[in-house]
């Protein structure tokens, strides 16, 4: 069975992450309950005429994918697999609002055409003329993890050698106002917004585009090796530790082998207990990392989490801004990620330094 390596990354987020080493430019914004991306210079990557027609997620996705491919030194790939929880919201909303406000009249197709969930993957394929496998997963907090699992299976079976994967979600006004109304986003009165410790219900929302080149061979640009991933739709709080131990054991690991754990804490007092429970028990002596105070919570924020984990392995350093506890390790060789949203769509991901053995 072939192995799966991360050979390039590209990250567009609420932080300056597209031209930095790691998180050296990051700051915690505790004043806004919706964090928007820091725009890269799009015209360096996309023709200006095309930029105007593109939704935010499409633009950011194209740039993040270009960065990942550039870093990995590849010009084309065997497959493009994306994950997006909410899809191309900007165009969906634009079209839906026009339907309702104009009573189904005077509509133009542009925003409908770009509203489908697979627009980012399709536009990337179109841009690099990639006729390969092209999939888009749209399943809430495991949208990105589904694409990683799919890619791993193709690498392991030898069906593909180089695959572009990514997670993209965009914030748009109407949906954000709806999420505020429904209580998914923290109230203004809960300011300053905190992820750790969580003191109020709901989350600070975010958006981003995080892409990776995964391949069957390591190279000098390699960050890490993806060892295993598992998706589980619903778990009770007490079941997480049991499932985590099963996951590790099934892959020949135990808790003591884990050098750091990247947890998806999002500051929602109702659900952060899922993380807290393992953090205070089986992972109490493990270095703990969090990141959603930087990225905001969104369905594919966990792709930002994987970017963080890959960067830790590459730099062998954990910036203070993402540390949860004071446990330190001499080296960070094996990192576990755990994520869930509202007690649903749990994922465990295990990555390590590259082991260049067949």
């Amino acid at each position, binding site marked *: 069975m072939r192995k799966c390596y991360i050979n390039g990354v590209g990250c567009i987020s609420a932080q300056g992450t597209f031209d930095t080493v790691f998180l050296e430019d990051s700051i915690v914004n505790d004043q806004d309950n919706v964090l928007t991306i820091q725009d890269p210079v799009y015209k360096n990557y996309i023709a200006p005429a095309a930029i105007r027609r593109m939704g935010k997620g499409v633009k950011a996705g194209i740039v993040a994918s270009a960065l990942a491919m550039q870093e990995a030194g590849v010009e084309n790939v065997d497959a493009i697999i994306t994950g997006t929880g909410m899809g191309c919201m900007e165009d969906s909303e634009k079209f839906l609002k026009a339907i309702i406000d104009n009573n189904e009249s005077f509509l133009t197709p542009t925003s409908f055409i770009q509203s489908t*969930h697979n627009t980012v993957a399709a536009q990337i394929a179109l841009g690099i003329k990639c006729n390969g496998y092209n999939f888009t997963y*749209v*399943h809430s907090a*495991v949208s990105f993890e589904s694409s990683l699992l799919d890619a791993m299976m193709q690498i392991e079976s030898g069906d593909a050698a180089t695959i572009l994967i990514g997670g993209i979600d965009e914030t748009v006004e109407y949906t954000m106002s709806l999420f505020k*109304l429904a209580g998914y986003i923290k109230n203004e009165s809960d300011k300053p917004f905190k992820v750790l410790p969580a003191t109020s219900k709901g989350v600070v929302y975010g958006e981003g585009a995080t892409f990776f080149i995964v391949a069957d061979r390591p190279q000098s640009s390699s960050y890490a090796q993806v060892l295993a991933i598992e998706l589980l739709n619903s778990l009770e709080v007490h079941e997480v530790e049991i499932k985590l131990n099963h996951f590790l054991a099934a892959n020949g690991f135990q808790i003591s082998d884990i050098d750091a754990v990247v947890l998806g804490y999002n500051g929602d007092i109702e659900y952060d207990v899922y993380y807290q429970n393992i953090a205070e028990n089986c992972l109490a002596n493990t270095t703990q990392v969090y990141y959603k105070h930087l990225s905001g919570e969104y369905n594919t924020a966990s792709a930002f989490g994987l970017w963080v984990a890959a960067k830790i392995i590459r730099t062998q350093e954990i910036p203070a801004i993402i540390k949860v506890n004071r446990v330190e390790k001499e080296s960070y060789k094996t990192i576990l990620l755990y994520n869930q949203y509202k007690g649903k769509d749990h994922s465990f991901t295990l990555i390590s330094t590259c082991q260049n053995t067949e």
Partner: protein
Amino acid sequence: MNKGVAITGMGIISAIGNTVEENLISLLNNKVAISTIDNISTIHKDSIKVAEIKKTNQELVNELQLPEENNYSRTAMLGAIAAKQAMADAGITDINEYRTGIVSSTSVGGMDMTERYYYEYFKDESCLKYVSSHDGGATAQTIADELGLKGMVTTISTACSSAANAIMFGARLIKAKKLDRVIVGGTDALAKFTINGFKTLMILSDTDNTPFDNDRKGLNLGEAAAYLVLESDELVQKEHKRVLAYVSGYGNANDAFHQTASSENGEGAFLAMQKAMKVAGLEPAQIDYINAHGTATPNNDLSEGRAMLRIFGKHVPDFSSTKPFTGHTLAAAAAIEAVYSILALQNNIVFPNLNFKTPMSEFDLVPQAVLKHKPIQHVLSNSFGFGGNCSTLIFSKSE
């Protein structure tokens, strides 16, 4: 040839029937379901025809015995009905007994509720329960809840090829031994969003759709849901399962030509069919029937026809599009056509491509216009979607 992954159950709800049996009866008796729209109020009511499931949301709620405070979208309810049928057909009583997953697909998800309550949300708090049913994943989660499944659940959305990709990924999960069994398929309800979307693209027919006809005027939108149960060989043997057919081949490729239009020579479709035959270990001559995507849009049928000619040359097997019966059910299309492909294998029949009169001027491809009985071993089913997404599945007879 490669045997593929066993299909042990199937379920379907479409405009031509609420069960597999009803769908078969309609297909055998040319019972189409293209009509004016009843369940959605739209200004296009008189200018379009659709394939609508003639059940109101309340009737679906009653059928599923849901509490009144449920927050299920129509898409989710249709999906739950079809998935439950598939489970029962496969004789599954304890869904968590083995490693079981769901790979679902949808394009509109809960859009039917979002468009209904777009401004209501801000006036009436009781609507807010539907906010969480909008996204694509909510549909699959609803189905998982209805089935009581705890395990791997995911959703694919690649426009009109979505369900083919769900079936493909499910088959691969079984082959890779990640799961013992998996419920795969798709669901999409009619919505103003898609009606108006396709309307602006000017590819909606005001009359019955006529795939592969020179005078085709576009598609009829439809709504449907269908699911298959795929199981590992080990489980089939252990449980002495009846096998309906096998998913023997699958392939996905991207046309990389245009966001919504298919390429002149059908490159993506060609590659998808080629890959699927390679996975199945079959030669073109071994395909007995093609259940074509055949949406009856000028662009699709030309592109698909050219791709078929590139694969099959002078010996294009019997082919037909069943969309004159069911309309184009978007993300669900490949799932309902998977059920029809299995029915074709089981009953040794080629379903008719209804409404066909005049061959297209660009080539001399003539679909099978009337019901045909003949031995069928392998059926190839195509599904293509926006974003250049091209998928092919091959279903083979169970010995």
